[in-house]
């Protein structure tokens, strides 16, 4: 589904990501963990087309994304939920969801909205509330829902657990598993190793812009020393 090879990102003289390789197959849940400043968010931004990589190739469903502008990537089936949730704080929940389906003019938006309300019933209750006034957990549910309004092939989540209570994180984790059951590929970029390990099939561990380890969730969690040192 997604193939990242040799991805390199620079800010001026500063090397944020150096020759990153990640492969994600269809229907997988793949985690990317690493400490602050490891280059995770830069990688997500490159996926979204918000920054131009210095080198490397990103291919989505076999297609090179290099020439595809940011706003067209969602129509290819790649939906990204950025760090900090990427919701529109002064819009209502419903307006946010409509923005989620912005690129899909012909789609049955009411039906899509019903499906995300099924996934997160609390959002249906709050549909007229301004998104910025909801709790952090509800905002994160909204962010994921916006990503799903595109009915994507693959969803990328950047730090969905940031600043959330453990019980809410658990709920998010359950939602991810239901997504996989629905056939959506998930790329979970996280600092929270527990959440990632709970839901992912495979995990990439990233530090200082490169992949340090790569393996199944069990392999990675077993190596607790390394995780402790990293996170």
């Amino acid at each position, binding site marked *: 589904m997604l193939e990242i090879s040799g991805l390199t990102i620079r800010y001026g003289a500063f090397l944020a990501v150096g020759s990153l390789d990640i492969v994600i197959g269809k229907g997988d849940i793949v985690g990317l963990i690493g400490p602050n400043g490891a280059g995770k968010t830069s990688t997500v931004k490159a996926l979204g*087309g918000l920054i131009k990589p210095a080198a490397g190739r990103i291919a989505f469903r076999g297609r090179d994304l290099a020439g595809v502008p940011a706003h067209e990537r969602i129509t290819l089936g790649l939906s990204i939920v950025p760090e900090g949730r*990427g919701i*529109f704080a*002064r819009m209502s929940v419903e307006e946010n969801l*409509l*923005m*989620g389906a912005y690129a899909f003019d012909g789609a049955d938006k009411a039906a899509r909205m019903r499906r995300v309300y099924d996934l997160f019933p609390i959002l249906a209750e709050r549909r007229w509330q301004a998104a910025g006034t909801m709790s952090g957990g509800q905002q994160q549910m909204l962010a994921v829902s916006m990503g799903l309004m595109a009915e994507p092939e693959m969803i990328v989540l950047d730090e969905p657990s940031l600043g959330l209570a453990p019980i809410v994180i658990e709920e998010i984790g359950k939602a991810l598993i239901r997504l996989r059951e629905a056939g959506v590929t998930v790329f979970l970029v996280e600092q929270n190793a527990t959440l990632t390990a709970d839901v992912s099939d495979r995990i990439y561990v990233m530090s200082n812009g490169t992949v340090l380890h790569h393996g199944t969730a069990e392999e990675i969690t077993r190596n607790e020393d390394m995780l402790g040192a990293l996170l």
Partner: protein
Amino acid sequence: MPTELVLISTLFTGLMLGVIFSLVAAGVTIIYGSIWMPNAANGQFFLLAALALWSAAVSWGLHPVVAALLVIGASVPASLLLEQMLIRRFYDVPNRNVSYFVLSLGITQILAGLFSVTYGVWSDQFQIPPLMAGITFLGPFPVSNSRLAALVTGVALLAALFALLRYHKYGRAIRAVFQNRDAASLRGVNVRAIYRLSFVLGNLVVAAGGVLYAFAYSFDLSVSWSMSITAFAIMIIGGPGSVVGAVAVGMVFGFTQAIVSAFASPTVATFSYLGAMLLILLMKPSGLFAR
């Protein structure tokens, strides 16, 4: 009867000025909110619309309504041309609000120079023939139908602007870009296209404000700067990028001017709303309706 007369005329004036201030400030805030352009030339665009209306209605003898539609319509290709030639060069420039401010000062200078050697030698007062004849009594207060029509049109335009921003797909996209442009882009919004749309829409609203002003009042070339300053003041108080703030504060400005000048003096009114701006900033530096 006299008290009632003054009271109703105050309300009418507040609404009339409020609608014009709101339109211009909304236009300015739409452009600032999207591309971070503090357009110092907005007063000149406002005046350009008023003068163009005058040319079309007086010099060419078109029907005022036709002339008004023509002028407001012409603002679209004019804005697109300006966007194509200059504005889009700075979309990705760091510190672009400073660049845009300089740019808009250059545009101000050019337009002021052109007006001064064209319209400036023609007269020092411009007046559009009335939209319609006659007087309507609001209680004891007589008001010309022409100004009443300008007021109603202005309210309708504000309502249409709100409806567009709230219920139309592109209106939502404009607001999304104001609030979080990266997120909007990830949701499939072509941010540069929205920039272009906002620039056109903002100027269109400013031009509509100029046209309505010209129907409601006689004007001269000096109206441009005072309108620029007023629009900036409204935008700052309302919170830059907030159309609701621009309209709410625009209305407050209109009513302040009307009420204070009715019960104190017009001079006190001018000082008072500029003074109020400083006070509000002291208490809430980000503006009343800021995110």
